[in-house]
């Protein structure tokens, strides 16, 4: 096994599960998360020879994952538009139909409401609320300032508060 393969396998061991949960929250379903995660790791493998070590591997891996996830969301919008459908309705349908969702109705409503946030707000919310990343970590990954991330998270929370009628949602 080459040195590169060893590094790659280390990344798989260290990050695959955590990235899965992030991608799952962003895509809404297990099936989509599984497909997208394979694309993300293919991208990581392809880009690994160019990794120079200027960023921490943690930041680098997360950055690829978040960029690929945003690209996936854009593609979903195009696909929905080609079907003369709305991506929000499509995501809601998938979340409703996901056999691996076993939470409460309030949690399902939260996932559905999060899926309706603009892509970047959604990303910030998922990273902070579910992935429990610090603002400093998020800033390194996204290349956005801590202040901007806090503002984005606050706006996302307000939108969700408006969207969810009962307002009582637990993790």
């Amino acid at each position: 096994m080459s040195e590169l393969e060893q590094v790659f396998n280390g990344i798989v061991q260290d990050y695959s599960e955590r990235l899965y949960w992030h991608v799952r929250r962003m895509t809404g379903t297990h099936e989509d998360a599984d497909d997208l995660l394979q694309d993300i790791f293919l991208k990581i493998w392809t880009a690994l020879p160019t990794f120079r070590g200027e960023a921490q591997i943690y930041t680098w891996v997360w950055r690829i994952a978040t960029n690929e996830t945003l690209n996936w969301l854009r593609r979903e919008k195009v696909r929905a538009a080609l079907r003369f459908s709305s991506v929000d309705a499509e995501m809601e349908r998938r979340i409703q139909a996901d056999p691996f969702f076993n939470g409460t109705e309030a949690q399902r409503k939260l996932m559905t409401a999060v899926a309706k946030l603009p892509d970047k707000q959604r990303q910030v919310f998922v990273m902070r609320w579910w992935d429990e990343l610090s603002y400093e970590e998020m800033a390194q990954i996204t290349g956005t300032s801590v202040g901007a991330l806090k503002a984005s998270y606050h706006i996302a929370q307000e939108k969700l508060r408006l969207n969810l009628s009962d307002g009582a949602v637990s993790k």
Partner: protein
Amino acid sequence: MTGKPDISVPEGYFQELREKLEAIPARGAARPAFVKRVAPYLAYAASLAVLAVTGNFILRQTAAPAEEDTGWDYISSLAQSRDPAGLGEELGETYSLTGEDIYQYLVEGNLSLEQLETLRYEEDY
């Protein structure tokens, strides 16, 4: 099933996932390399197709007067024009083909979105 309080994964999923992901180096990055090789040919084919469609459009637009009286001479003069840009100007239109035009053409073609995205984002990393 294992997972978070509200979402779960099939039993043993993460072990299977790691095995699938660790097999990626063995599979290699064949698909991106293939796309990279054929991308210039696709762009060339697309530009030729755009020219063919444009030419066909021009001829169709000019076909009606040709059936009447003096149209044949006009079409004949167009056919002798060797410069496609000059041909466009003669009809009061200019065509400057950009990368975006080619991309849009491919979007309207039969390429899958995955292929398009690979083409578009291949240079990102």
